[in-house]
């Protein structure tokens, strides 16, 4: 079967190659596969694979168009939903540059001399993130924030060989599930510390009472399921370090344009979700796991994932980039590696680097301020409708919880009819919520009239 994606499938070319190899039939090349295992051509062609026949590109586009149309697509500006991924504006130049074929279709830069541009992009990603976080070492990416958290806990155990890690009660539930999967084979116990039901801030006394024989204390900052930016961050850092434990922070890179950074708060490891930096929602991925640590040789040695470094050519004539400290990685250290990760989220990291470069210092700060303003404005307007908004009265950024007067899922479903995707019914995801609680999110994509529109519709439901 000749196909445009398989150049040597041309019958004449194929025959000339088989002749040269010296076999009559392509099947001869499979003469070492047991007969019972070889699959019969007719059987294969009738398996449930695609439409059981090749399609041309026009047919495929029609089918895919139909698949995509058969969903309710909410305009970005009508989505008020977060919980670990948020609607953000992606500038046209970001997507354009990230689709350059030399990068999109490249492999991991094992041959650095011919991959300098790719390596420099990844180095710039590491550098830009390090400046936002004020952490000195950043790796070239993990899959997403959740898997980065799992890896951070494993790294902490490798560093101090302790088994107890404190986590906040209001941790992102998806992150918690992933952290459990990663740590369950390694005798690590994850113990929650309480959060004040009025402010949403961590309960310092509860942390202190649980802080013995610790590997690490983890703080989500802001908490993605309440939006609260914990005012006790510094105190938690100090408790962790008094107890010789690590302080691990999970961050939103955009909020750090306004709030204290992991560097300022003396975090040992910082992880984060890079999706807000120019990546689409795509029903869950691909996203970008940020992973950073301190300038500490022991920490860096235990760090998972790939690192790019700046150096020079051997003759010293030009700057150059290469993968560094590779002896931590699976292709060299095998079962002793710091992680099994190899394919990561490089293109997402490069996309984030392009996004940060395009917006620059002022542009990123604008985005952070826009998020702050819109979420605080919306909280105030919803409060004026008579709901408890925000439910927690601590400092919040972007997201907040509202207590409504009926099952929140019902409210959300009614608003779907107006083309609005209104938040997350918290009770479906976390054990500490009531069914009237909704988690709402606001970003730079929402104009004042978008927000006023949803407030208006909310009013009409009452």
């Amino acid at each position, binding site marked *: 079967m000749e196909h445009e*994606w398989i150049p040597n499938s041309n019958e004449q070319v194929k025959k000339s190659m088989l002749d*040269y190899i010296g076999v009559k039939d392509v099947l001869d*090349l*499979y003469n070492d596969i*047991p007969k019972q295992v070889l*699959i019969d051509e007719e059987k*294969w*062609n009738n398996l449930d*694979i695609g439409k059981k026949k090749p399609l041309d*590109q026009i047919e495929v586009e029609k*089918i895919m168009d*139909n*698949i*995509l149309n058969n*969903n309710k697509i909410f305009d970005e500006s009508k*989505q008020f939903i977060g919980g670990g*991924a948020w609607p953000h504006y992606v*500038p046209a130049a970001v997507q354009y*540059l990230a689709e350059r074929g*030399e990068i*999109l*279709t*490249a492999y991991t830069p094992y041959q650095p*001399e*011919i991959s300098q*541009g*790719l390596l420099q992009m990844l180095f710039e990603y*590491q*550098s830009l993130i*390090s*400046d936002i976080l004020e952490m000195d070492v950043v790796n070239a990416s993990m*899959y*997403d*924030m959740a898997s980065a958290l799992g890896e951070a806990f494993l790294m902490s155990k490798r560093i101090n060989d302790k088994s107890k890690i404190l986590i906040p009660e209001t941790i*992102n539930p*998806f992150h918690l599930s992933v952290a459990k*999967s*990663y740590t369950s084979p390694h005798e690590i116990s994850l113990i929650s510390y309480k959060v004040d039901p009025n402010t949403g801030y961590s309960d310092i006394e509860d942390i202190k009472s649980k802080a013995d024989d610790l590997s690490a204390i983890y703080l989500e900052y802001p908490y993605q399921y309440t939006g609260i930016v914990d005012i006790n961050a510094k105190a938690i850092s100090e408790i962790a370090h008094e107890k010789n434990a690590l302080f691990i922070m999970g961050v939103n890179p955009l909020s750090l*344009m306004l709030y*204290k950074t992991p560097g300022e708060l003396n975090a040992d490891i910082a992880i984060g979700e890079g999706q807000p930096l120019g990546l689409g929602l795509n*029903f869950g991925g691909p996203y970008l796991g940020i992973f950073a640590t301190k*300038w500490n040789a022991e920490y860096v040695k235990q760090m998972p994932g790939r690192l790019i*470094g*700046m*150096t020079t050519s051997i003759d010293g004539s030009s700057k150059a980039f*290469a993968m*560094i400290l590779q002896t931590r*990685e699976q292709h060299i*250290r*095998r079962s002793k590696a710091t992680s*099994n990760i190899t*394919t*990561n989220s*490089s293109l997402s990291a490069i996309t984030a680097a392009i996004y940060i470069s*395009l917006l*620059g*210092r002022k542009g990123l700060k604008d985005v952070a301020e826009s998020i702050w303003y819109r979420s605080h*404005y919306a909280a105030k307007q919803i409060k004026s409708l008579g709901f408890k908004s925000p439910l927690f009265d601590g400092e919040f950024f972007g997201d907040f919880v509202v207590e409504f007067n009926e099952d929140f899922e019902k409210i*959300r479903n009614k608003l779907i009819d107006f083309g609005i995707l209104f938040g997350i019914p918290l009770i479906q995801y976390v054990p500490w919520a009531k069914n009237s609680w909704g988690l709402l999110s606001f970003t730079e994509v929402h*104009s004042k009239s978008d927000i006023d529109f949803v407030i208006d519709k909310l009013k009409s439901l009452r």
Partner: protein
Amino acid sequence: MFKQANWNEPLIYELSNGREGIRFKGNNEEFKQILGDISIPQSLKREKEPELPEVSEIEVVRHFTRLSEMAYGVDSGPVPLGSCTMKYNPKLSLKIATDKRLAFIHPLQPESTLQGLLKALYELQNWLASITGMDYCTLHPAAGAQGELSGVLMIRKYHEIKGNINLKDEIIIPDSAHGTNPASAAMGGFKTIEIPTDESGNMDYDAFLSSLSERTAGLMLTNPSTLGLFEERILDVAKIIHEKDGLLYYDGANLNGILGKARPGDMGFDMAHLNLHKTFSTPHGGGGPGAGPLCIKDRLVKDDIMFHDLLPGPIVIYDEKEKLYKIKWPGKYSPGLLKSFFGNVQQLIWAYTYILTLGPQGLKEAGEIAVINTNYFIKLMEDSKGYSLPYGNGRFRKHEVVLSAEPLHEETGVTAEDVSKGLLDSGFYAPTIYFPLIVKEALMIEFTESETKENIERFANRLKEIEEIAKKNPNEPKQWPINTTVRRIDMVKANHPKTITPTYRAGILRQKGILGPLR
């Protein structure tokens, strides 16, 4: 002649000139009038603005365009990296996978509003099950290594549920395996037992037999192996590992070698991960993101617990009564989630498009041509003295072949690395080198079905030309590459505690004397 661009492009920081980038100023003023200035508690306020570049849009576009011109992908030319399956990434799939309608779907959008997407994902689960001869697939894992970890965690759960986990703590892995296999087994809390490879290129069967014990939890196998050779006694291996109640895991990195010809499920494998960024044409993006679905053969675990109850991640199911596609989240026997949300859906839709276009006939053609390309290349290299073909004398290879530059090295001192730099100089990407570890001066070559006959011939000719140059003037290859953006790189400086520079910030702080050596 090939000559790669060299723009001597500064770092984005060095381009910073205080100009304005993209700003979404929107109507913050409107909000400000209502709310006043942003009020953040003093103790939470960031003290110093970050040292980020300030550059105009066209400067950023030129910067990244120039950098991309100093990179090399499948769109630039052949990338014959063995075990990486760098096939063509169809632009049709790019167009569809980057559609706005997909980009805008939030991961927690209600499933009743996503019937088109869920149906496609449901079909993809079924297609991958058909392709691998398995019963169930989860599309959740973010990459091959995460697929492996999913599999290893399932092996762990399986023995846990049967009450044997304290005993069953060893996973067997051949010495030709990808490094991710032992790393994944270790992440899943297992010890690893390494089995040597025999002369014919199979896992040493006697060594395998003697490694088995009541401690055996499973075996991770790559078939065809990293030598491109099919494991001839696979049916015996499967039978014996099952007798020990061990589970047989298939590393799908090399599936392209048997696509449409043999299926892991029919060979006795219990589980298999697939690398969609290899066999199913999703782009590798310079190191990811990928997608690593895991497929399994169902079996009874204990009482009424089935093996599919142990699958990690969300799975799409079809509710016959309600006529709705739904997501089933992992239950109590599953290891749980390995990343947030469903999976790398952009990659999944890309692979769906690829399979839809080719159909079973096209996939089979892809597998066959990949194998023909490998063996055609081997035949072209048959008369070469500088490169040998270790293991499996006389056997046909499948998706890839491992040549050894050891004869050339012994005669001239020219190494596999030197050879690879010579390939770069003529506009090819280099093969995977020094892997598998069992082959000296290894050159691991995989053309995939995407490479033209003409390019394979050019590649073989270049290898022979390099051999001739090495014999005439062994010093010349040590100077390569000369046609790439930079020449060989100072890796000592790159890794030395006093000069290591993982970020721009670290470099600046070291210059200022704030950071010392990283030791």
